[in-house]
């Protein structure tokens, strides 16, 4: 940022964020990423979500310039960076493994990138001091990565990325090596940091909880293709296809036996127990989840899961019903959403 101030008339382009146009990556005859187009606004956090091998890490590596793009374009603040070498892009990345240099101290890790860019020592010191402050790394300056805890390493990796004042921040499952408690504690902190940077950030994860909690918008990828792009709320309540519907939400969505080429899906918390007029079911198992309980049911339309309050009492015979506007219908063969509702 400091290298160049936007000129008048250029302001829009300078702050336009990240844009991917029909990005593809093929390797050895296999399509790792097909035709991905999306935009990320400055200050926005976009999560790339999907199972392993879906193309999310591939996308990140294309953006970073670590792997070559097969076709398509990448624009960062109006400037095309598709073919720029990794080091020239002003893009920073936090790796899943953190990729801290094991032979260097915390300060050494932070300093190396600035040093090879030829930044004067005094300026380096100031910048490093600022980022050490920001991420509360005081006292750890002279330790080596092996002497840090997982959470501290993650902070150092984040510090190293922020230090460069990148125009785009990439995070590859940065919390997957941390225990659940630490993750819960770091999530809001990270969210604040990324929003505050004023630049687009892309966050790759396979953990939907993390994506739902951290991201402004989520892009769900599957087999190298974008399935749906939208806010967490939209993805959850209005999934575009069967994959998104069943990937998001835990316990997983109920899929009822198909009828007339169409399949009905219902979220477990949208089912209700009724005394009559519903679908008759038998109880198979009961699972306590603390505040709630999960019922495993068997019906004429297949097995169902139902989420209800922990103090709900069960009285035979059991029947289950739901509101019609909670029904999600999908084409049984393509998996695409049918907007028409029940026949």
């Amino acid at each position, binding site marked *: 940022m400091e290298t160049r101030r936007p000129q008048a008339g250029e302001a829009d382009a300078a702050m336009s964020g990240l844009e991917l146009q029909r990005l593809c990556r093929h390797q050895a005859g296999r399509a790792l990423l097909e035709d991905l187009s999306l935009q990320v606004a400055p200050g926005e956090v976009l999560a790339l979500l999907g199972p392993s091998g879906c193309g999310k890490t591939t996308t990140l*590596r294309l953006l970073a*310039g670590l792997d070559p793009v097969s076709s398509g374009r990448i624009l960062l603040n109006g400037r095309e960076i598709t073919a720029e070498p*990794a*080091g020239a892009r002003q893009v920073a990345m936090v790796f899943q*493994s953190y*990729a801290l240099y094991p032979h260097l101290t915390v300060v050494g890790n932070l300093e190396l*990138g600035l040093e*090879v*860019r030829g930044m004067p020592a005094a300026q380096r010191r100031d910048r490093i001091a600022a980022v050490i402050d920001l991420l509360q790394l005081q006292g750890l300056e002279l330790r080596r990565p092996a002497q840090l805890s997982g959470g501290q390493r993650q902070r150092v990796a984040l510090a*190293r990325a922020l230090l460069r004042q990148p125009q785009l921040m990439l995070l590859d499952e940065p919390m997957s090596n941390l225990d659940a408690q630490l993750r819960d504690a770091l999530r809001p902190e990270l969210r604040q940091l990324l929003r505050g940077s004023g630049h687009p950030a892309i966050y790759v994860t396979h953990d939907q909880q993390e994506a739902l909690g951290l991201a402004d918008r989520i892009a769900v990828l599957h087999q190298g293709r974008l399935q749906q792009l939208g806010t967490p709320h939209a993805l959850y309540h209005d999934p575009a296809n069967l994959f998104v519907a069943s990937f998001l939400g835990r316990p997983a969505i109920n899929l009822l036996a198909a009828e007339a080429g169409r399949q009905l899906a219902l979220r477990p918390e949208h089912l209700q127990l009724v005394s009559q007029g519903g679908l008759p079911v038998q109880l198979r198992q009961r699972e306590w989840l603390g505040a709630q309980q999960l019922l495993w049911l068997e019906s004429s339309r297949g097995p169902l899961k139902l989420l209800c309050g922990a103090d709900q009492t069960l009285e035979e015979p059991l029947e289950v019903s739901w509101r019609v506007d909670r029904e999600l219908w999908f084409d049984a063969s393509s998996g695409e959403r049918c907007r028409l509702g029940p026949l």
Partner: protein
Amino acid sequence: MRRPPHPLLLLGALLWSLLPLLWQLLTSLRTPEALVAPTPAAWLSGWTLANYRQVLLGQPPFWRYLLNSALVGGASTGLTLALAIPAAYGLQQQGLRLQRLITLLLLAAAKFPYVLLFLALLELARALGWGNQLLALAVPYAGLSLPLAVLLLRAALADLPPDLEDAARLEGLNLGQRLRRVLLPLLAPAIASTAILVFLFSWNEYPIALTWISRAELLTLPTAMARIAGSSVYAVPYGAYAAATVLGSLPLLALVLLFQRQIVSGLTQGSVRG
């Protein structure tokens, strides 16, 4: 559940390894008369340092051979590393099929009984005028060491997390900077292993040194020792020879004591991982 071995077994193993060497030490301290004395009674007398004096004041003096070997060893090690480090990195970047092919060829070369090569290498030396050029030996020595060196270093490179180099690329380090600032420091243990193995090989190499070098003051240690023996097949001056053996072994003893860990890891990694 593993228990320490029986002390006698351990002692047996140590004696098997060290006794022949200790006998050399003993021999080096005896007068020629004591060595051929007919009765055990005479074994207790006749201690002397004369053998060492003779060897060290010989023409050329013995330390000259040690120096020659050290020079050749140093040059070969430097040349080998200078070629092997970039090669290991380059090999790591190749496609899988090419990588496997080259690895296989290097493995075959590393196992090759290199005594087979001396005649053609001698012709080469003559054609290039490299006979009796001490440091020229570093070229075939590097060539002979390279297969093992490249395999060792590549195995070590493959063990580094790939993210490290990616992170360095993202931070704008060019290839040279990445090698120097990130990869080489992390490869240091493997480089040390490789260096010590190459040095030992050059220090000990015989057939090529034998055919390339004929001038007495340029001989390396193994050829000099063999020449002492060859000059008098029926009556090797064993006392003086043993003194030379002890002197010639001391640097190696020091190396082995200092670097046994690196030697062992190099030996096993080089053969197991290739």
